[in-house]
Protein backbone atom coordinates (compact mmCIF):
# COMPACT_ATOMS: atom_id res chain seq x y z
CA UNK A 1 0.00 0.00 0.00
CA UNK A 2 1.49 3.27 -1.14
CA UNK A 3 -0.15 6.52 -0.29
CA UNK A 4 1.11 10.05 0.23
CA UNK A 5 -0.61 11.45 3.28
CA UNK A 6 -1.35 15.14 3.27
CA UNK A 7 -3.94 16.17 5.81
CA UNK A 8 -3.11 19.85 5.40
CA UNK A 9 -4.93 19.79 2.07
CA UNK A 10 -8.20 19.98 4.02
CA UNK A 11 -7.17 23.32 5.47
CA UNK A 12 -6.17 25.03 2.28
CA UNK A 13 -8.65 27.93 1.99
CA UNK A 14 -10.25 26.72 -1.23
CA UNK A 15 -10.91 23.15 -0.08
CA UNK A 16 -11.83 24.22 3.44
CA UNK A 17 -14.48 26.53 1.97
CA UNK A 18 -15.80 23.67 -0.17
CA UNK A 19 -16.27 21.48 2.88
CA UNK A 20 -18.04 24.23 4.81
CA UNK A 21 -20.36 25.18 1.94
CA UNK A 22 -21.00 21.49 1.20
CA UNK A 23 -21.96 20.90 4.83
CA UNK A 24 -24.27 23.92 4.80
CA UNK A 25 -26.06 22.79 1.62
CA UNK A 26 -26.49 19.33 3.10
CA UNK A 27 -27.99 20.86 6.24
CA UNK A 28 -30.30 23.31 4.41
CA UNK A 29 -31.58 20.56 2.17
CA UNK A 30 -32.12 18.03 4.97
CA UNK A 31 -33.84 20.45 7.31
CA UNK A 32 -36.16 21.88 4.65
CA UNK A 33 -36.97 18.41 3.29
CA UNK A 34 -37.67 17.13 6.80
CA UNK A 35 -40.18 19.93 7.37
CA UNK A 36 -42.03 19.11 4.13
CA UNK A 37 -41.89 15.43 4.96
CA UNK A 38 -43.25 16.01 8.45
CA UNK A 39 -46.33 17.99 7.39
CA UNK A 40 -47.11 16.13 4.17
CA UNK A 41 -46.33 12.78 5.79
CA UNK A 42 -48.60 13.52 8.76
CA UNK A 43 -51.43 14.41 6.39
CA UNK A 44 -51.01 11.24 4.33
CA UNK A 45 -50.62 9.14 7.45
CA UNK A 46 -53.85 10.59 8.89
CA UNK A 47 -55.61 9.88 5.56
CA UNK A 48 -54.73 6.24 5.95
CA UNK A 49 -56.32 5.99 9.40
CA UNK A 50 -59.58 7.81 8.58
CA UNK A 51 -62.90 6.08 7.95
CA UNK A 52 -63.06 7.32 4.37
CA UNK A 53 -62.42 5.03 1.41
CA UNK A 54 -61.26 7.76 -1.01
CA UNK A 55 -58.78 9.38 1.38
CA UNK A 56 -57.64 5.91 2.38
CA UNK A 57 -56.80 4.93 -1.17
CA UNK A 58 -55.11 8.26 -1.87
CA UNK A 59 -52.84 7.58 1.08
CA UNK A 60 -52.14 4.00 0.04
CA UNK A 61 -51.40 4.90 -3.60
CA UNK A 62 -49.11 7.71 -2.53
CA UNK A 63 -47.11 5.48 -0.22
CA UNK A 64 -46.85 2.61 -2.73
CA UNK A 65 -45.68 4.85 -5.58
CA UNK A 66 -42.98 6.62 -3.62
CA UNK A 67 -41.81 3.49 -1.88
CA UNK A 68 -41.37 1.36 -4.99
CA UNK A 69 -39.32 3.69 -7.20
CA UNK A 70 -35.62 4.21 -6.45
CA UNK A 71 -34.95 7.60 -4.93
CA UNK A 72 -32.31 8.37 -7.56
CA UNK A 73 -34.86 7.92 -10.31
CA UNK A 74 -37.32 10.13 -8.43
CA UNK A 75 -34.60 12.76 -8.30
CA UNK A 76 -34.21 12.60 -12.09
CA UNK A 77 -37.95 12.68 -12.61
CA UNK A 78 -38.36 15.86 -10.54
CA UNK A 79 -35.39 17.50 -12.21
CA UNK A 80 -35.68 16.40 -15.86
CA UNK A 81 -39.23 15.15 -16.38
CA UNK A 82 -41.49 17.23 -14.13
CA UNK A 83 -40.86 20.57 -15.93
CA UNK A 84 -41.83 18.87 -19.24
CA UNK A 85 -45.09 17.44 -17.96
CA UNK A 86 -46.59 20.57 -16.41
CA UNK A 87 -48.23 23.29 -18.58
CA UNK A 88 -45.69 24.92 -20.85
CA UNK A 89 -45.54 28.36 -19.20
CA UNK A 90 -44.98 26.89 -15.78
CA UNK A 91 -42.45 24.42 -17.19
CA UNK A 92 -40.46 27.21 -18.84
CA UNK A 93 -40.50 29.17 -15.62
CA UNK A 94 -39.17 26.12 -13.78
CA UNK A 95 -36.42 25.62 -16.33
CA UNK A 96 -35.33 29.23 -16.83
CA UNK A 97 -36.34 31.56 -14.04
CA UNK A 98 -36.43 29.46 -10.92
CA UNK A 99 -33.32 30.26 -8.90
CA UNK A 100 -31.22 27.27 -7.99
CA UNK A 101 -33.31 24.58 -9.73
CA UNK A 102 -31.08 21.76 -8.41
CA UNK A 103 -31.90 22.69 -4.85
CA UNK A 104 -35.64 23.03 -5.45
CA UNK A 105 -35.87 19.73 -7.31
CA UNK A 106 -33.85 17.91 -4.67
CA UNK A 107 -36.02 19.49 -1.97
CA UNK A 108 -39.28 18.41 -3.62
CA UNK A 109 -37.87 14.95 -4.25
CA UNK A 110 -36.60 14.31 -0.74
CA UNK A 111 -39.62 15.96 0.88
CA UNK A 112 -42.23 13.95 -0.99
CA UNK A 113 -40.26 10.70 -0.76
CA UNK A 114 -39.66 11.00 2.97
CA UNK A 115 -43.29 11.99 3.47
CA UNK A 116 -44.26 8.52 2.30
CA UNK A 117 -42.09 7.01 5.01
CA UNK A 118 -43.19 9.46 7.70
CA UNK A 119 -46.80 8.66 6.73
CA UNK A 120 -46.25 5.01 7.62
CA UNK A 121 -44.85 5.99 11.02
CA UNK A 122 -47.68 8.42 11.75
CA UNK A 123 -50.23 5.79 10.75
CA UNK A 124 -48.71 3.15 13.01
CA UNK A 125 -48.45 5.71 15.81
CA UNK A 126 -52.14 6.60 15.55
CA UNK A 127 -53.12 2.95 15.29
CA UNK A 128 -51.14 2.11 18.40
CA UNK A 129 -53.24 4.46 20.52
CA UNK A 130 -55.91 2.24 22.01
CA UNK A 131 -59.38 2.36 20.42
CA UNK A 132 -60.92 3.31 23.75
CA UNK A 133 -59.19 6.68 23.59
CA UNK A 134 -60.87 7.49 20.29
CA UNK A 135 -64.27 6.36 21.51
CA UNK A 136 -63.87 8.33 24.71
CA UNK A 137 -63.02 11.39 22.64
CA UNK A 138 -66.13 11.04 20.51
CA UNK A 139 -68.24 10.38 23.61
CA UNK A 140 -67.22 13.75 25.08
CA UNK A 141 -68.55 15.38 21.90
CA UNK A 142 -65.33 16.08 20.01
CA UNK A 143 -65.44 16.20 16.22
CA UNK A 144 -63.04 14.00 14.24
CA UNK A 145 -60.84 17.04 13.62
CA UNK A 146 -60.72 17.90 17.30
CA UNK A 147 -60.12 14.27 18.23
CA UNK A 148 -57.03 14.12 16.01
CA UNK A 149 -55.64 17.52 16.91
CA UNK A 150 -56.18 17.42 20.67
CA UNK A 151 -55.96 13.73 21.51
CA UNK A 152 -54.66 11.26 18.93
CA UNK A 153 -51.83 13.22 17.32
CA UNK A 154 -50.23 14.50 20.54
CA UNK A 155 -50.05 10.93 21.81
CA UNK A 156 -49.02 9.40 18.47
CA UNK A 157 -46.18 11.86 17.84
CA UNK A 158 -44.67 11.13 21.22
CA UNK A 159 -44.79 7.40 20.54
CA UNK A 160 -43.07 7.69 17.17
CA UNK A 161 -40.23 10.00 18.15
CA UNK A 162 -37.57 7.26 17.79
CA UNK A 163 -38.62 6.05 14.31
CA UNK A 164 -39.18 9.65 13.18
CA UNK A 165 -35.66 10.51 14.29
CA UNK A 166 -34.25 7.76 12.16
CA UNK A 167 -36.34 8.98 9.21
CA UNK A 168 -34.87 12.46 9.58
CA UNK A 169 -31.39 10.99 9.76
CA UNK A 170 -32.21 9.06 6.60
CA UNK A 171 -33.11 12.33 4.85
CA UNK A 172 -29.80 13.70 5.99
CA UNK A 173 -27.97 10.77 4.38
CA UNK A 174 -30.23 10.68 1.32
CA UNK A 175 -29.51 14.35 0.66
CA UNK A 176 -26.24 13.14 -0.87
CA UNK A 177 -28.27 11.92 -3.87
CA UNK A 178 -28.71 15.55 -4.86
CA UNK A 179 -25.17 15.44 -6.22
CA UNK A 180 -26.48 13.45 -9.21
CA UNK A 181 -28.39 16.51 -10.42
CA UNK A 182 -25.51 18.85 -9.66
CA UNK A 183 -26.11 20.19 -6.17
CA UNK A 184 -22.69 20.61 -4.56
CA UNK A 185 -23.44 19.22 -1.12
CA UNK A 186 -21.00 17.54 1.24
CA UNK A 187 -20.43 14.24 -0.58
CA UNK A 188 -20.08 16.01 -3.92
CA UNK A 189 -17.56 18.41 -2.45
CA UNK A 190 -15.46 15.65 -0.90
CA UNK A 191 -15.44 13.82 -4.22
CA UNK A 192 -14.35 17.04 -5.93
CA UNK A 193 -11.46 17.47 -3.51
CA UNK A 194 -10.48 13.89 -4.28
CA UNK A 195 -10.56 14.62 -8.03
CA UNK A 196 -8.54 17.81 -7.73
CA UNK A 197 -5.90 16.71 -5.24
CA UNK A 198 -5.94 12.87 -5.35
CA UNK A 199 -6.09 12.99 -1.53
CA UNK A 200 -9.14 10.75 -1.42
CA UNK A 201 -8.45 9.42 2.04
CA UNK A 202 -8.38 12.87 3.61
CA UNK A 203 -11.34 14.18 1.64
CA UNK A 204 -13.64 11.24 2.40
CA UNK A 205 -12.52 11.15 6.03
CA UNK A 206 -13.55 14.79 6.42
CA UNK A 207 -17.00 14.07 4.97
CA UNK A 208 -17.39 10.91 7.06
CA UNK A 209 -16.47 12.67 10.29
CA UNK A 210 -19.00 15.43 9.57
CA UNK A 211 -21.81 12.98 8.75
CA UNK A 212 -21.10 10.80 11.77
CA UNK A 213 -20.86 13.70 14.22
CA UNK A 214 -24.07 15.35 13.02
CA UNK A 215 -25.85 12.00 13.22
CA UNK A 216 -24.63 11.49 16.77
CA UNK A 217 -25.64 15.01 17.77
CA UNK A 218 -29.17 14.63 16.38
CA UNK A 219 -29.54 11.24 18.06
CA UNK A 220 -28.57 12.71 21.43
CA UNK A 221 -30.89 15.70 21.09
CA UNK A 222 -33.82 13.50 20.08
CA UNK A 223 -33.22 11.18 23.02
CA UNK A 224 -33.45 14.22 25.30
CA UNK A 225 -36.68 15.32 23.63
CA UNK A 226 -38.05 11.80 23.88
CA UNK A 227 -37.46 11.50 27.59
CA UNK A 228 -38.79 15.03 28.22
CA UNK A 229 -42.02 14.41 26.31
CA UNK A 230 -42.87 11.02 27.75
CA UNK A 231 -46.40 10.49 29.02
CA UNK A 232 -46.37 7.92 31.80
CA UNK A 233 -48.44 4.88 30.90
CA UNK A 234 -48.55 5.58 27.15
CA UNK A 235 -44.95 4.92 26.28
CA UNK A 236 -43.15 1.81 27.33
CA UNK A 237 -40.46 2.70 29.83
CA UNK A 238 -37.07 1.39 28.84
CA UNK A 239 -36.17 -1.59 30.99
Amino acid at each position, binding site marked *: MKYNWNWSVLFEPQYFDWIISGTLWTLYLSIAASLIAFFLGSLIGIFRTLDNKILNSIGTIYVEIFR*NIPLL*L*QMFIWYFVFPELVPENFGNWLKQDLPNPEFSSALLCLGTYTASRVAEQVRSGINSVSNGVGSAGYATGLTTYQLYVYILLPIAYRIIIPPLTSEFLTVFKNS*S*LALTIGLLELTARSNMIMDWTFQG*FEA*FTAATVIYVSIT*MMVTLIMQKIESKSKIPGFIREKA
Partner: protein
Amino acid sequence: MIKNFDFDVITGSIPFLWKGLQVSFYLTFLALVGGIVFGTLLALMRISNIKFLKYFSMTYVNFLRSMPLILVIFWFFFLIPVIIGRPIGGFYSAVIAFTMFEAAYYSEIIRAGLLSVSSNQISAARATGLSYSQSMIYVILPQAFRNMVPILLTQAVVLFQDTSLVYVVSLRDFMTASSIVAQSQSRLVEMYLFAALVYFSICFAFSFMIKRIQNRKVTT
Protein backbone atom coordinates in the same frame (compact mmCIF):
# COMPACT_ATOMS: atom_id res chain seq x y z
CA MET B 1 -47.53 16.35 -24.23
CA ILE B 2 -48.43 12.68 -24.32
CA LYS B 3 -48.95 12.77 -28.09
CA ASN B 4 -45.32 13.75 -28.57
CA PHE B 5 -44.13 10.65 -26.76
CA ASP B 6 -41.76 8.55 -28.77
CA PHE B 7 -42.03 4.98 -27.61
CA ASP B 8 -39.72 3.67 -30.34
CA VAL B 9 -36.82 4.90 -28.23
CA ILE B 10 -37.79 2.32 -25.65
CA THR B 11 -38.52 -0.62 -27.96
CA GLY B 12 -35.31 0.05 -29.89
CA SER B 13 -33.14 -0.12 -26.81
CA ILE B 14 -34.74 -3.09 -25.07
CA PRO B 15 -31.67 -5.40 -25.46
CA PHE B 16 -29.38 -2.73 -23.99
CA LEU B 17 -31.76 -2.07 -21.10
CA TRP B 18 -32.23 -5.79 -20.46
CA LYS B 19 -28.47 -6.16 -20.08
CA GLY B 20 -28.56 -3.36 -17.53
CA LEU B 21 -31.43 -4.98 -15.64
CA GLN B 22 -29.47 -8.23 -15.46
CA VAL B 23 -26.54 -6.35 -13.92
CA SER B 24 -28.95 -4.85 -11.35
CA PHE B 25 -30.34 -8.28 -10.47
CA TYR B 26 -26.93 -9.90 -10.29
CA LEU B 27 -25.53 -7.12 -8.11
CA THR B 28 -28.58 -7.33 -5.83
CA PHE B 29 -28.21 -11.09 -5.51
CA LEU B 30 -24.48 -11.05 -4.69
CA ALA B 31 -24.80 -8.15 -2.25
CA LEU B 32 -27.80 -9.84 -0.62
CA VAL B 33 -25.92 -13.10 -0.05
CA GLY B 34 -22.73 -11.31 1.02
CA GLY B 35 -24.66 -8.92 3.24
CA ILE B 36 -26.52 -11.73 5.00
CA VAL B 37 -23.36 -13.79 5.56
CA PHE B 38 -21.33 -10.84 6.84
CA GLY B 39 -24.35 -9.45 8.70
CA THR B 40 -24.81 -12.78 10.51
CA LEU B 41 -21.17 -12.69 11.58
CA LEU B 42 -21.58 -9.13 12.86
CA ALA B 43 -24.75 -10.09 14.73
CA LEU B 44 -23.05 -13.10 16.34
CA MET B 45 -20.12 -10.88 17.34
CA ARG B 46 -22.54 -8.38 18.81
CA ILE B 47 -24.23 -10.92 21.10
CA SER B 48 -21.02 -12.73 22.01
CA ASN B 49 -19.36 -12.39 25.41
CA ILE B 50 -16.00 -11.35 24.00
CA LYS B 51 -15.75 -7.59 24.57
CA PHE B 52 -13.49 -6.86 21.61
CA LEU B 53 -15.79 -8.55 19.09
CA LYS B 54 -18.83 -6.90 20.62
CA TYR B 55 -17.42 -3.39 20.41
CA PHE B 56 -15.94 -3.96 16.96
CA SER B 57 -19.35 -4.98 15.65
CA MET B 58 -21.11 -2.10 17.43
CA THR B 59 -18.70 0.48 16.05
CA TYR B 60 -18.82 -0.94 12.55
CA VAL B 61 -22.61 -0.99 12.42
CA ASN B 62 -23.14 2.48 13.90
CA PHE B 63 -20.46 3.96 11.70
CA LEU B 64 -21.75 2.52 8.45
CA ARG B 65 -25.31 3.37 9.34
CA SER B 66 -24.55 7.03 9.81
CA MET B 67 -22.91 7.35 6.38
CA PRO B 68 -24.68 7.98 3.08
CA LEU B 69 -24.48 5.03 0.69
CA ILE B 70 -22.97 7.19 -2.05
CA LEU B 71 -20.11 8.16 0.23
CA VAL B 72 -19.56 4.48 1.07
CA ILE B 73 -19.44 3.68 -2.66
CA PHE B 74 -16.91 6.48 -3.22
CA TRP B 75 -14.86 5.21 -0.28
CA PHE B 76 -14.62 1.66 -1.61
CA PHE B 77 -13.96 2.67 -5.20
CA PHE B 78 -11.10 4.76 -3.89
CA LEU B 79 -9.83 2.35 -1.19
CA ILE B 80 -9.84 -0.99 -2.99
CA PRO B 81 -7.19 -0.09 -5.60
CA VAL B 82 -5.07 1.64 -2.93
CA ILE B 83 -5.17 -1.37 -0.62
CA ILE B 84 -4.68 -4.23 -3.08
CA GLY B 85 -2.55 -2.26 -5.49
CA ARG B 86 -4.65 -2.69 -8.62
CA PRO B 87 -8.24 -1.95 -9.68
CA ILE B 88 -10.60 -4.95 -9.67
CA GLY B 89 -13.24 -3.46 -11.94
CA GLY B 90 -16.37 -1.50 -11.21
CA PHE B 91 -18.69 -4.44 -10.75
CA TYR B 92 -16.72 -6.20 -8.02
CA SER B 93 -15.93 -2.94 -6.28
CA ALA B 94 -19.68 -2.28 -6.22
CA VAL B 95 -20.38 -5.78 -4.88
CA ILE B 96 -17.89 -5.22 -2.04
CA ALA B 97 -19.23 -1.74 -1.24
CA PHE B 98 -22.86 -2.92 -1.15
CA THR B 99 -21.99 -6.03 0.86
CA MET B 100 -20.16 -4.03 3.51
CA PHE B 101 -22.91 -1.41 3.63
CA GLU B 102 -25.88 -3.80 3.68
CA ALA B 103 -24.18 -6.03 6.26
CA ALA B 104 -24.57 -3.21 8.79
CA TYR B 105 -28.35 -3.11 8.19
CA TYR B 106 -28.75 -6.88 7.97
CA SER B 107 -26.84 -7.42 11.19
CA GLU B 108 -29.42 -5.34 13.09
CA ILE B 109 -32.27 -7.38 11.59
CA ILE B 110 -30.46 -10.66 12.31
CA ARG B 111 -29.59 -9.61 15.85
CA ALA B 112 -33.26 -8.89 16.54
CA GLY B 113 -34.05 -12.30 15.05
CA LEU B 114 -31.49 -14.02 17.26
CA LEU B 115 -32.84 -12.29 20.35
CA SER B 116 -36.38 -13.37 19.41
CA VAL B 117 -35.37 -17.00 19.97
CA SER B 118 -35.81 -17.75 23.65
CA SER B 119 -32.56 -17.97 25.59
CA ASN B 120 -33.77 -21.23 27.16
CA GLN B 121 -33.11 -22.81 23.78
CA ILE B 122 -29.40 -22.16 24.16
CA SER B 123 -29.34 -23.67 27.61
CA ALA B 124 -31.28 -26.68 26.36
CA ALA B 125 -28.94 -27.12 23.39
CA ARG B 126 -25.89 -26.83 25.61
CA ALA B 127 -27.40 -29.33 28.04
CA THR B 128 -27.68 -31.93 25.27
CA GLY B 129 -23.93 -31.61 24.83
CA LEU B 130 -23.70 -29.28 21.83
CA SER B 131 -20.91 -26.72 21.83
CA TYR B 132 -21.73 -22.97 21.68
CA SER B 133 -21.11 -22.79 17.95
CA GLN B 134 -23.04 -26.00 17.30
CA SER B 135 -26.04 -24.75 19.24
CA MET B 136 -25.91 -21.47 17.29
CA ILE B 137 -25.64 -23.19 13.91
CA TYR B 138 -28.10 -26.06 14.42
CA VAL B 139 -30.58 -24.62 16.90
CA ILE B 140 -30.68 -20.84 17.15
CA LEU B 141 -29.86 -19.59 13.64
CA PRO B 142 -32.36 -21.80 11.77
CA GLN B 143 -35.19 -20.63 14.03
CA ALA B 144 -34.05 -17.02 13.89
CA PHE B 145 -33.88 -17.02 10.10
CA ARG B 146 -37.35 -18.48 9.80
CA ASN B 147 -38.71 -15.53 11.80
CA MET B 148 -36.71 -13.05 9.77
CA VAL B 149 -37.63 -14.11 6.23
CA PRO B 150 -40.20 -11.37 5.56
CA ILE B 151 -37.99 -8.55 6.87
CA LEU B 152 -34.93 -9.85 5.04
CA LEU B 153 -36.91 -9.97 1.81
CA THR B 154 -38.30 -6.48 2.35
CA GLN B 155 -34.76 -5.27 2.84
CA ALA B 156 -33.85 -7.04 -0.43
CA VAL B 157 -36.35 -4.82 -2.25
CA VAL B 158 -34.70 -1.78 -0.67
CA LEU B 159 -31.33 -3.14 -1.74
CA PHE B 160 -32.55 -3.63 -5.30
CA GLN B 161 -33.56 0.04 -5.38
CA ASP B 162 -30.29 1.09 -3.78
CA THR B 163 -28.25 -0.65 -6.48
CA SER B 164 -29.40 2.15 -8.81
CA LEU B 165 -26.83 4.31 -7.01
CA VAL B 166 -23.99 2.63 -8.92
CA TYR B 167 -24.95 5.35 -11.40
CA VAL B 168 -22.49 7.61 -9.55
CA VAL B 169 -19.59 5.39 -10.62
CA SER B 170 -21.03 4.78 -14.12
CA LEU B 171 -21.50 1.05 -13.69
CA ARG B 172 -24.04 -0.05 -16.31
CA ASP B 173 -26.98 -1.29 -14.31
CA PHE B 174 -30.57 -0.64 -15.37
CA MET B 175 -30.54 2.92 -14.02
CA THR B 176 -27.32 3.87 -15.78
CA ALA B 177 -28.41 2.14 -19.00
CA SER B 178 -31.72 4.06 -18.98
CA SER B 179 -29.87 7.27 -18.40
CA ILE B 180 -27.42 6.56 -21.25
CA VAL B 181 -30.31 5.94 -23.65
CA ALA B 182 -32.17 9.00 -22.34
CA GLN B 183 -29.20 11.32 -22.83
CA SER B 184 -27.99 9.95 -26.16
CA GLN B 185 -31.45 10.05 -27.77
CA SER B 186 -32.54 13.22 -25.93
CA ARG B 187 -35.65 11.39 -24.77
CA LEU B 188 -35.42 11.95 -21.03
CA VAL B 189 -39.13 12.07 -20.33
CA GLU B 190 -40.00 8.75 -21.98
CA MET B 191 -36.97 6.88 -20.70
CA TYR B 192 -37.15 7.98 -17.08
CA LEU B 193 -40.88 7.36 -16.88
CA PHE B 194 -40.36 3.95 -18.44
CA ALA B 195 -37.55 3.15 -16.01
CA ALA B 196 -39.79 4.24 -13.11
CA LEU B 197 -42.53 1.93 -14.39
CA VAL B 198 -40.12 -1.02 -14.60
CA TYR B 199 -38.73 -0.47 -11.11
CA PHE B 200 -42.21 0.08 -9.72
CA SER B 201 -43.61 -3.12 -11.24
CA ILE B 202 -40.74 -5.25 -10.01
CA CYS B 203 -40.71 -3.83 -6.49
CA PHE B 204 -44.48 -3.75 -6.14
CA ALA B 205 -44.87 -7.35 -7.33
CA PHE B 206 -42.13 -8.51 -5.02
CA SER B 207 -43.53 -6.64 -1.99
CA PHE B 208 -46.94 -8.16 -2.75
CA MET B 209 -45.41 -11.63 -2.73
CA ILE B 210 -43.71 -10.93 0.58
CA LYS B 211 -47.05 -9.91 2.06
CA ARG B 212 -48.56 -13.19 0.88
CA ILE B 213 -45.75 -15.16 2.53
CA GLN B 214 -46.23 -13.21 5.74
CA ASN B 215 -49.99 -13.82 5.81
CA ARG B 216 -49.55 -17.50 5.16
CA LYS B 217 -47.20 -17.75 8.10
CA VAL B 218 -49.70 -16.09 10.39
CA THR B 219 -52.56 -18.42 9.46
CA THR B 220 -50.65 -21.69 9.82
